[in-house]
């Protein structure tokens, strides 16, 4: 093989490998939708913001034989300038029973604030049994300067909830989304 042939072969191989590298850069980005799709799979037991959608109010048969303790946690992301708390810290409910819990949030700034509450369940598998009929977490909330709101959250625990779950923790985190929402 002459030197020129080798040099041609080298350039060709380098081009192919460069394409592979560029492709892998794209693959890194492709992992984002792939992740979302995989997480929709039934056996992936985790809660996602998208799962938390308005559920229809169905008359379930109330399971009086057991009681579930629900703990309500409220958190502010980083230094979101708000006050945020739930009216109750804890509630004992029977599966199938409808309840409403009020959350209180206040904008502590003199500017309009757009904030988003994101839910998180522990254990995560609960999210598909915790049905919300009304929630401030479905949408972004706009607060006028210094505005305070009382926001109800109406929910039911699906009686199909497996027996082993006796305590559920529901945590809401408020994110200050003003900057991002304005840019959109």
């Amino acid at each position: 093989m002459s030197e020129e042939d080798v040099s041609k072969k080298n350039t060709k191989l380098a081009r192919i490998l460069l394409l592979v590298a560029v492709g892998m850069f794209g693959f890194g980005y492709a992992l984002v939708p792939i992740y979302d799709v995989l997480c929709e799979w039934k056996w992936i037991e985790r809660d996602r913001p998208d799962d938390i959608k308005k559920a229809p109010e169905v008359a379930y048969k109330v399971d009086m034989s057991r009681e579930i303790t629900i703990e309500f946690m409220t958190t502010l992301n980083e230094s979101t300038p708000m006050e945020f708390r739930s009216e109750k810290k804890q509630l004992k409910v029977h599966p199938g029973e409808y309840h409403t819990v009020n959350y209180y949030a206040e904008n502590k700034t003199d500017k309009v604030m757009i904030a988003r509450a994101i839910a998180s369940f522990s254990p995560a598998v609960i999210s598909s049994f915790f049905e919300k009929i009304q929630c401030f977490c479905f949408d972004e909330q706009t607060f006028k300067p210094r505005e305070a709101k009382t926001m109800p959250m109406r929910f039911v625990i699906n009686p199909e909830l497996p027996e082993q779950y006796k305590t559920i923790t529901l945590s809401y985190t408020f994110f200050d989304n003003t900057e991002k929402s304005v840019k959109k």
Partner: protein
Amino acid sequence: MSAVVAEHDDHHADEHHDHGPAKGLLRWIITTNHKDIGTLYLLFALAMFFVGGAMAMVIRAELFEPGLQFVDPAFFNSMTTMHALVMVFGAVMPAFVGLANWQIPMMIGAPDMALPRMNNMSFWLLVAGVLLLASTLLMETGAPNAGWTFYPPLVLQPITVGKALPFAVFAVHLLGISSIMGAINIIATIFNMRAPSMKMMDMPLFVWTWLITAFLLIAVMPVFAGAVTMLLTDKFFHTSFFNAAGGGDPVLYQHIFWFFGHPEVYIMILPTFGVASTIIPVFARKPLFGYSSMVWATGSIAFFSFIVWAHHMFTVGMPMAGELYFMYATMIIAVPTGVKVFNWTATMWKGAMTFETPMLFSIAFVVLFTMGGLTGLMMALAPLDFQYHDTYFIVAHFHYTLVPASIFILMAAGYFWLPKWTGNMYNEKIGQLHFWLSAISVNILFFPQHFLGLAGMPRRIPDYAIQFADWNMVSSIGGFIFGLSQLLFLYIVIDTIRGGTGEKVTAEVWEGSSNHSLEWTLPSPVPYHTWTTPPAVVPTEHVLDSH
């Protein structure tokens, strides 16, 4: 070294139609010679080894006693972050690229790397990337301090990020481009430039392991570049890849990062395996045991590295199915790794062994790497990992797989090939002293960290509960001895380049080495240009079992 090489080239001027190295400093900037570039890579890596090591000394000094002594917590966190980045991307990876540059063309009978100009560019991009990263140390807001893994949301928070994040991200881009170009070059060299008589299954294992490593690099460095780019756009351009408020997920980052990160740790260890498989047979005076199984083991380790990443994140709240899958998949890696350890041991079995410094470092590597591997197996067990996660146990584990493994083997490679490259013998007495000091102190340094981790000491903290005081002090003392011992290596490298013991070495340097690999059939020191005509016959002692 330049003087020696140049002088030698004059002696053999009639053998080469080409000129020797250019004169002056410019030679090193514009060089396209694989040996020059290899030297640049190795010296740069050595310098970075001491920079990263100095940061480790700051860490160990602060942890010498409980309480805050020397540095404030933010700077301490910068030190852990920068120590990791400098050691991984500035020291270990470039050192292996340097070895590849020097050795691969000589081992396969090629006159140079396939793409010499790109070779020069990859080196200087590496320097640019590391300088960009280092520049953050001078910033008012400090260097990155959220850990080398850059986990969001921590890394995006104003208090930790300062102005350093974009610099670190662009540094990663440059380092990524540099190592991808290096990898492309290595693959092209191995595929297209081999001596016609050398089949793939004749290649020395160092060449094989680097070929596989180069593919890993091309596959995962771009993914890492993508992940940090997403961080950048999340921070400055209002995307929401990892921002829960915008529908993103911080856990996604960990998946993408470790899809890169796990192969990355094999990028640092596979060439290590290659060098060990090169050195051990020479000093055991036997062919490598199980050559083809070594090749296949390397390949399968590389393959498995892509499908085990989430064992770094057992505690994020993965579904049970995921925990089990990643647990079993991870444990499978112990099989090909076990094959390798078995083969090295079998190579030494009944060999006529001598214990020169390179061999000592290699034997220490086999023993201590196995220990690091066993703690890895412990952590592969998902239920146990919940205790070990983010404690000093993991710190002990990965330092065992990097320091007495990758670093020891890099030292071994230095002792093994420096006489070949320079034509001078290193001082064996100081070499042995360096070995024993390193081998003992590295265990004083890292072994107690297992205890600390099991007792619950978290990693990345500048201060700790009082019950961890004793073992931290022991670990720090070990660290200081280890750090100081490395100055002996620096001395030896400089001394050997400048003439060493004065004893001129033979072409073989080590008895019988020319039966193992091609570079030992060249004169010592190696001329500036080698294999301008490919060798007619290639040594095959190392592959006896495959023929």
